[in-house]
């Protein structure tokens, strides 16, 4: 399989043997459970449906419950499909952790829902420059001109402006796996990962 579901624990730093400090994000990756197979005959493609994090049975609706009952594992909070070359390697009900998917020094792509910043202005959202702060100016955080006047007599689509910022699926590519702790299902990734602490993260091999 090419990926795993994880929970972001937060950031810290680790030392290499050379004494270098490396900023890392710690993820609790797994334990995940194989819920179901998607097969060529039935679904037109091959994939493994994976569940992560328990939830109470009464929280699941009947469609979900049927799915979980079939696999023989309890209700899970998060479900996702991953492509797999060999379905027989991942039988339904198999539990797996970080060490089964990831190894040290590997490069991974990481997706998560970024921290929501609400309706933000252009300065925070698009790194626009601020106006002068003094001498009676009223142009402190304004976006400035948004285009010419009579021609084209409209604002071009895609013009950067204020609006919802964050709370959106974001992917960071090619993060290095610094360390995998198979016993406790921890993954240490070099650098930052989108989303808040306790956010759900998808780690895929690059």
């Amino acid at each position, binding site marked *: 399989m090419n990926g795993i579901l994880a*929970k972001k*624990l*937060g*950031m*810290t*730093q*680790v*030392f290499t*043997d*050379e*004494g270098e*400090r490396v900023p890392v994000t*710690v993820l*609790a990756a797994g334990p995940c459970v194989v819920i179901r197979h998607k097969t060529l005959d039935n679904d037109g493609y091959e994939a493994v449906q994976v569940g992560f994090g328990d939830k109470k049975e009464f929280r699941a609706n009947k469609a979900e419950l049927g799915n979980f009952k079939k696999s023989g594992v309890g209700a899970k909070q998060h479900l996702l499909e991953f492509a797999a070359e060999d379905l027989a390697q991942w039988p339904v009900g198999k539990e797996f952790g970080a060490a089964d998917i990831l190894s040290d020094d590997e490069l991974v792509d990481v997706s998560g829902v970024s921290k929501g910043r609400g309706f933000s202005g252009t300065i925070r959202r698009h790194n626009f420059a601020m106006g002068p702060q003094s001498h009676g100016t009223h142009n402190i955080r304004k976006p400035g001109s948004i285009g010419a006047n009579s021609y084209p007599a409209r604002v071009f689509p895609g013009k950067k402006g204020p609006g919802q910022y964050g709370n959106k699926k974001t992917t960071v590519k090619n993060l290095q796996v610094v360390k995998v702790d198979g016993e*406790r*299902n*921890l993954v240490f990734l070099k650098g930052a990962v989108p989303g808040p602490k306790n956010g759900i993260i998808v780690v895929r091999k690059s």
Partner: protein
Amino acid sequence: MSVNIETLNQETTRELVPVRAGDTVTVNIKVVEGNKERIQPFKGVVIQKKGTGLGSTLTVRKISGNVAVERIFPMHSPRIESIEIDHKGKVRQARIYYMRKLRGRAARISERTR
């Protein structure tokens, strides 16, 4: 999933000697030369302690020959063998940057007794 960042950090943090600004310390650093590893002492006055937890650092100043040298050590680095306090100094500031302007007899620090 009872692991959190604080408990993880405690695994890598080490016991620290209670150094303070103004103390004269010897920092024993592990140095790799070729394929041999040896310990190199660095003796000087602590100018400042900075940061908390894993990222905290220690700035040590010494006069080497006629040149002042300041080195910043990450206190939890595995490259640091040990830190020894040679002399406890009595200073009023937590960061004694004024030491940079002082030389010779003026740069003495009196003993801290309590």
